[in-house]
């Protein structure tokens, strides 16, 4: 039974990590109406930048991390300026395809810049595990989980209660209407991209703390998808709940189904959940339902 509890709690913590990445999806989607398929790749770039600063250039963590966060902020702004801005006013499909193109492109660049070898990501957060009763927990995940909760609360308050947040929400609803109200659509979108770049690097630090990594780490972006969907792509608060639900569900599934299928359940089960969610409630638990007047 301790083992089941272990799966559940670890699942929940992993879920919170996915929630952090999913928040990046949601922030961009909410503001720019863009689903950023390339989010996973941005996580990887952030990770490699931290690795470069710390392991290659030997900077201490309190220099490397802020530098890397700054770099990912710039990367986000750069992508927005160069690639997303020319598409303002286009339809959704164009944005979807552009971020997919970006995904592929960045992967290529990462390979050329850093190669395919496994690198060892430095332990920015302390490695010592935390013991809670019979459970052994990854300290990084616990700290990360707490950070996720705090960040979610802040961003949720921002989007629903502040003037700037309302304006960004207006941009998410409809670019043209936002323009007609005097809102700078470009600025809102730029902010969204910058912020999610930062969040992605944070997620990378937590996720890869002290572990080996390659360019394939970007797959975490796709694993965070079901969480974003379960929450509904417009809901930040929902993302935390979604993360917990998906994380626990995956934990349970792995516990019960791994013996039957000889492993591998944890990587596919999030997608099974996603399909079920989409079938039952396409806009997610908290997302914006399509309000159509016929």
């Amino acid at each position, binding site marked *: 039974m301790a083992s089941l509890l272990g799966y559940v709690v670890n699942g929940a913590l992993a879920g919170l990590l996915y929630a952090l990445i999913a928040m990046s999806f949601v922030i961009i989607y909410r503001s720019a109406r863009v*689903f950023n398929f390339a989010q996973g790749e941005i996580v990887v770039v952030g990770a490699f930048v931290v690795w470069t600063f710390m392991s290659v250039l030997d900077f201490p963590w309190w220099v490397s991390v802020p530098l890397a966060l700054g770099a990912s902020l710039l990367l986000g702004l750069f992508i927005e300026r160069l*690639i997303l801005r*020319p*598409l303002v006013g*286009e339809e*959704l*499909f*164009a944005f*979807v*395809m*552009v971020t*997919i*193109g*970006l*995904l*592929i*492109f*960045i*992967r*290529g*660049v990462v*390979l*050329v810049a850093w*190669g*395919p070898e496994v690198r060892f990501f430095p332990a920015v957060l302390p490695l010592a595990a935390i013991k809670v009763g019979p459970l052994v927990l990854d300290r990084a995940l616990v700290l990360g989980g707490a950070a996720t909760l705090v960040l979610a609360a802040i961003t949720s308050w921002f989007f629903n209660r502040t003037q700037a947040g309302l304006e960004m929400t207006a941009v998410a609803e409809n670019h043209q209407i936002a323009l007609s109200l005097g809102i700078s659509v470009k600025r809102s979108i730029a902010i969204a991209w910058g912020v999610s770049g930062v969040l992605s690097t944070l997620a990378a630090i937590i996720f890869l703390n002290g572990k080996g990594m390659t360019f394939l780490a970007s797959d975490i972006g*796709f694993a965070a*998808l079901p969480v974003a*969907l379960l929450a509904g792509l417009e809901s930040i608060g929902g993302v935390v709940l979604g993360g917990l639900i998906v994380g626990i569900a995956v934990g349970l599934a792995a516990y019960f189904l791994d013996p039957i*299928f*000889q492993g*591998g359940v944890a*990587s*596919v089960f999030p*997608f*099974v959940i*996603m*399909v079920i969610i*989409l*079938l039952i409630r*396409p*806009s997610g638990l908290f997302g914006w339902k*399509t309000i*159509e007047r*016929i």
Partner: protein
Amino acid sequence: MTLPAGVHAETYDQDRALIRTPGQWIWFAALLAGLLLLPLLGSGKAIGIANVIGITLVAVVGLQLTSGFAGQINMGQSAFMGVGAYACGALAVNLQMPFWLTLPISGISAAVFGAVFGLAALRIKGFYLALTTIAAQYIFSFAMLKLPKAWFGQAEGLRLDAAALGGYALDTDVRIYYLVLLVAVVMTYGAWGVARSRPGRAFVAVRDNDNAAEVIGINVFYYKTLAFFIGAFYAGIAGGLWAYYVRYVQADQFTLWLSVWYIGMLIVGGMGSVLGAIVGTVVIRLLQDLITVVGPEMVEAFPRLGGQFVFAAMNMLLGGMIIAFVIFEPRGLVHRWNILKESYRIWPFPH
């Protein structure tokens, strides 16, 4: 399609015909001749490239029907192709069925699998449907690795003997080429047929506004499912051809990345027309081959680029092309070509 002066139709059949002028017949005949004589004109390498283009073409044309005509973004075409390939392989290896049976069956099995996602389209729209198809990819990979080894090979995959007609084995590139060519031509012609027919028009209506389509009496649910069914059928056939060409089927051959490449081909070629699918496939595949040739040379000249450069460069190329096309020419090369023709015709006027 604008036609030269003096060309008009007097019957419905004439109006719907693909080839309308003597000039077009000549071009068409020349193309056919070129394709049939390719083994004589080209080297072994050219045939290999042609085979891959032909197989990809079938899958991408099918994708065009689902995504370009019916507007259902499908990021799982590669998984559907995989279903077809595995069906073909499993039947060939375990039951020794001949290719002229396994190919249609692979098409059908993929079609059924695809239709399941069409069913999902009843509830799930647009972009969320695309995500569902992504899920299909992962579920497919997982399933293929866990299904009974005897039938599906699991991680080791399936090995096939060459397709055979009686005693005549299609075991060289050239022999398979003619099968691929025949299938590709038939399927492409079929695609044009679908596009110009009632289902084709229904697809376009569903794409443009499914509520309005429903209101004027089009059974949107039926047509969405049909779009996936047909598109996946094409993918299944392509998968079967692939199985006989490479003679080895394994889940890792059919990844999400491949599905993305297919969508990329549609974007470059132009969504919404069969010709767009053809153009996109040919252009991207040729560029890929170009990189495979040029890549190693560049790595020799610049060792810093590393051994993975060819793979990385292909990614950068495809990603860059998709981005560039979406920003600058979202309707693809076919649209650009049409504009060029139009400007040529009305020159020196600007519009």
